[in-house]
């Protein structure tokens, strides 16, 4: 069964950024800005944390927006990224209605593969993978 990443309960989040660190680490980078998921506060640290992840759409708008075939449908939802076809145009990121795609420092989109590595580093189990 394919798996997808889900936010189980963002209210438990303490903002440690270990998930973002984990994703970046897997991508060979120390920087949380190089992660496929985003954790930030709404209204500063006294406000709530917002966790933005790819929600694995069945009809991915990002894929529809890509004119170069760099994104194809992923089994279980979401998309698979084919870097060699990507022109760094950013249309995919603009098309995502929840802003779950960010661009890396080289200009490529950071596409969540729903591998679940980040979930192993959430001390409060805010995120998890679910079979679909």
């Amino acid at each position, binding site marked *: 069964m394919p798996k997808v990443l889900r936010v189980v309960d963002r209210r438990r989040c303490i903002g*440690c950024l*270990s998930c973002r660190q984990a994703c970046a680490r897997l991508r*060979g980078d*120390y*920087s*949380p800005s190089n992660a496929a998921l985003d954790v930030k506060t709404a209204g500063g640290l006294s406000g709530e944390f917002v966790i933005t992840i790819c929600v694995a759409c069945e009809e991915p708008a990002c894929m529809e927006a890509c004119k170069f075939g760099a994104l194809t449908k992923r089994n279980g939802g979401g998309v698979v990224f084919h870097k060699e076809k990507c022109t760094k145009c950013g249309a995919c990121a603009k098309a995502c209605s929840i802003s779950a795609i960010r661009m890396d420092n080289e200009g490529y989109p950071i596409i969540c593969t729903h591998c679940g590595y980040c979930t192993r580093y959430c001390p409060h189990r805010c995120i998890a993978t679910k079979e679909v």
Partner: protein
Amino acid sequence: MLNKDYIRVLYIDLTNEEYRFEERKDLFKYIGGTGVAAKLLEENIKPELDPFDPSQPIIFANGPLSFVMPVCTKVVATFYSPHTREYGESHAGGRLAMAMRFNNIDAIVITGKAKYPKYLVIDDKVLFKDARAMWGLSVEDTGKILRQHTTGSGIRSSLRIGRAGENLVTYAGVNVDTYRHFGRLGLGAVFGSKLLKGIVIIGDESIKIPKENLKKYREVYDSIYDVVTKTDVMEKYHAVGTSINVLPLNEMNSLPSLNLKTTRYEHAEGISGEKFAREVLVRKVACSGCQIGCIHIGQFRRQFDEGYEYETVNVSYDHELVFALGSFVGLKNPEEVLQLIDVVEREGLDAISTGVALGWATEAYNRGIITIDDTLMPLEFGVLPNYMAAVHYIATGKNEFYKDLGKGVAYASKKYGGQDFACHLGGNEMPGYHTGYGSVVGFSVGSRHSHLDNAGYSIDQARPKEEEIVKKIFNEELERNILTSLVACLFARKVYNRETILKALEAVGIQYTNSELTEIAKEILRTKYRIKEKLGYSLDSIKIPKRFFETITLNGKLDQEKAHKMVKEYKAMIEDLMKQ
């Protein structure tokens, strides 16, 4: 530093609105954090000039493990303390260490004075922005404005001062990301003297993990992560938090209360960590890169008008705040303590020094040393509204007395009297432990007169032989120079033993031997004492106020002569170190 053989220092000149970077290979051997910040202070301080002279530097430094290893979350600031008028060092968590790391800045040196109030935005460039409209605003309101006017939510850090810093209260702090602080020794006043209202740093750059380190890095990260999250080594900091100490300290006659007239507080139960957790704790948050989440947020509701009109306020609390703004001034329940913390936060004061100053003022008022002409209202232990007003008066320098109180209890008691019960050690107001010789001597001789210098309070609780105490203080102070150079949070001191430190550094490509680290620790402490000497400081000047010997500790009543003898003993050890 991480991935390079130099320290990248950002120099900012507020007078001329200029900045430049330097790649300092010579600083690399001092690791980062305390080591680098102390060295940069030694280079840039102007001992002959006043701490508020525009040419005096403010230094920040993170370390090689900042954010890249679990719980390495702190930034070290060094400066010429306007409070003790000697070596100033203070540490803060939040997001600053991360933001500096991913802006590729290892250290910052700020000198000069702005023409009018400014704030800095450090992104791809350093921008000098107009802060005139923010001058006079609270820490909270300033934070909201900085947030609205900068980018980088989630990966930026926001520093700001309140009115206390603007008005040069010598124990004004700098707020970092709402819930953390460079609290002690007056960095906020140094900001104020430079007309610097705040700094925002955005850290969105990529730093690649060298391919050859990738496997090792992941392994070591995981092993430390597991110790942090799956063992009970750090559990106390997450669960009830540091305020779990209130009741045990009280039980062992060690909780400073009512201006240290007692160490056993009749309302300790009412302000215990457990009571806070049950009644006002609403959430916990973490510094970036820490899985513990020790920042305990308490909430209170206040009716501001008839017709069920309420405001809801969130404030962070810890043992030190519960002691200073609780037992030390006779408050009796979490809601009262949170309300006092709230005004201290908004004004941007150091919580410990403020509480101890209020405690001294209350006793001085009760004894008739100062009168209502000075205090403008009666001060009485346990009466919250007047304390809240007094905090505003300190921050704004309401009259001559409050201006004096804003220079600390050592200064105020020298002028008005009451030195015997002015609870400072080495000029810095006492922290929340009166455990024995370890605490009293440890705070006195600590290089920044902080409980975190050498944890003398912890040494006392292990009940060592008296003749071993000074050596233990000295050794702990040395070792902590390594931890605070990495920069690991001291709550993780049991996680980062020497073996783990060496392993963690190696995993990011930095090689040290155990004996090299020991030598570096010594050189860092020597650096601090060289600065102290330049500023005319001597351990001979330590005079411990009588109150510390009148009030019982875990280890009984202390003997004045013995304590001063221990200070001398420590001085001899420092003299030995300086010769090495």
